[in-house]
């Protein structure tokens, strides 16, 4: 297993190793020198029998006795000094090592802490929180860095605010245009039908009875279209927080494709026992939208293949059709709200799908080729038990 040390850990380890080794070498050198001195002293072999010699005078005898005594005390002192030095120097070295490491780590932390703050601030900015204000204190370079960072985050916050306002304006303009267009579309046939009924009422009342059912049906149909439009907008605005639970996608998919199967060639492949963590209502909405989209994209002989499989700790659900395909330009925009390439689309279907996928911590990808068809791939998390 390869251990990757952080910058801080590397510096501290390096410091401890270098400091420890140099202290060890220095200590060994002085201990060695001391041992040499002790050895030299040991080599002065006093003949203990000297003390038993009979000296000519009492004074000589006392002097000899004192000399030997002094030698013995010096030898004892050297031994004790050596032991004392060994113990105290090693203890002192250890204490110096600990104190130096403590001072070093404190200083090092003073340098590293602002960088850690900077890392978490950068993370916050990455997540869209620009309300970051790093403390403007510390070493000169760090102070300068923090000031620049604060300035940058303030500018980013301002830019983001402007962008949001601009985006809101664009979206509102787009919605207004879309709504106007979508409302105008059914209004024209309604208007034409009413005009036709009025005209017949004035000119030919017999004909009025003949065309009335057809005109009434047209008006009903267009009112239903308007109601659908209103419902779509309402649904998009009303997406609920997911209530995730263990569910078998195959069960849900069988239910979804049941009404279409007699009319279209829809196949379903995969392990029936696979379970995923997903809001079942959201899953139903997503798959219904995608299946309907695929059917809408097919001109004739519609063939849809739904395959799901377990890959590592995820489940891949693929939905592939043989429809007209989506152009590269449109492919980039298909999940944007109010974008539609269909004549009667609201542009909300795939936007709803994307939002539901996101709030269920899943992922969706799309691949398409004009004339060959489109494949939607969804990656969901397996149930916890299977992870």
């Amino acid at each position, binding site marked *: 297993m390869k251990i990757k040390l952080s910058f801080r850990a590397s510096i501290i380890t390096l410091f401890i190793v270098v400091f*420890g080794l140099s*202290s*060890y070498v220095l*200590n060994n050198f002085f*201990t060695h020198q001391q041992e040499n001195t002790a050895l030299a002293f040991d080599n002065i072999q006093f003949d*203990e029998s000297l*003390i*038993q010699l009979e000296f000519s005078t009492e004074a000589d005898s006392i002097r000899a*006795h004192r000399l*030997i*005594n*002094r030698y*013995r*005390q*010096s*030898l*004892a*002192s050297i*031994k*004790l000094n050596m*032991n*004392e030095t*060994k*113990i105290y*120097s*090693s*203890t*002192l*070295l*250890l*204490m110096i*090592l600990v104190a130096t490491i403590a001072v070093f780590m404190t200083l090092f932390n003073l340098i590293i802490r602002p960088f850690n703050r900077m890392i978490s601030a950068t993370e916050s900015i990455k997540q869209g929180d620009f309300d970051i204000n790093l403390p403007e204190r510390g070493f000169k370079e760090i102070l300068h860095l923090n000031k620049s960072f604060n300035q940058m985050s303030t500018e980013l916050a301002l830019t983001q605010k402007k962008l949001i306002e601009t985006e809101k304006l664009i979206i509102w303009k787009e919605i207004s245009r879309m709504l106007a267009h979508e409302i105008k579309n059914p209004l024209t046939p309604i208007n034409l039908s009413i005009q036709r009924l009025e005209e017949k009422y004035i000119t030919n009342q017999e004909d009025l009875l003949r065309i009335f059912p057809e005109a009434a049906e047209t008006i009903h149909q267009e009112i239903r279209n308007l109601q659908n439009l209103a419902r779509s907008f309402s649904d998009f605005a009303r997406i609920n927080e997911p209530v995730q639970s263990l569910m078998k996608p195959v069960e849900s998919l069988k239910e979804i494709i049941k009404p279409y199967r007699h009319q279209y060639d829809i196949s379903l492949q995969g392990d029936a026992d696979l379970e995923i963590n997903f809001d079942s209502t959201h899953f139903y909405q997503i798959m219904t939208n995608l299946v309907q989209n695929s059917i809408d994209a097919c001109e004739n002989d519609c063939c849809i293949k739904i395959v799901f499989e377990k890959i590592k700790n995820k489940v891949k659900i693929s939905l592939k059709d043989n429809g007209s395909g989506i152009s590269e330009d449109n492919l980039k925009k298909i999940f944007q709200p109010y974008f539609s390439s269909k004549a009667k689309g609201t542009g909300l279907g795939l936007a709803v799908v994307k939002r539901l996928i996101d709030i269920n911590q899943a992922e969706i990808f799309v691949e398409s080729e004009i004339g060959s068809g489109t494949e939607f791939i969804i990656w969901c998390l397996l149930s916890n038990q299977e992870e």
Partner: protein
Amino acid sequence: MFNVLADKIIFGVVSAGMILFSSFQGNKATFTSPEFVANQNRFYISTTLENAFENDFEDIIRSGEEIFIDFEIKLEKNSSVSKSIIFSHSIIYNAMDHSYTLKLEEHESEQHIFEYSDLLHRLSIIDYSFEEYVQEVNTITLTASIRNVNLPSLNKQYDMMMLWNFRKPKIVLNVTDYKNEN
């Protein structure tokens, strides 16, 4: 309690320092498993101090200065010391006749010994009995230490406990079950 903690900290720091930076081992002085008798009103302890007087001890004893080994017996009742008995063993080297004078305070005896190994043997034996009511004692703790030595010709005092790595050998006896710890 704080003394015990301080002793442990000092011993820990010294040991760690020596492991890292020194080849010095010192003497790991310990008591042997004791013989312990507790009668109605009399106690008897017998044990031997081991690994206490090796390495440079002979040279230090031969300095001619009196070396004292102090022993302390603490009698405890419900975690408080009720009595403390202190006695010592001392050695003096006599250069004139190469003999050692060993004084055992607890026996009030003085012996002249010529063999160093014989000296160490007698110095290490603790054989002590004292009067006390059994019901007055829960725990008996025996510790040993070496008194500081002053070398007058060099005018310097040495902490002899460094030779034991600043660790006092200790023995704890639980009077009720005669359980001992070393």
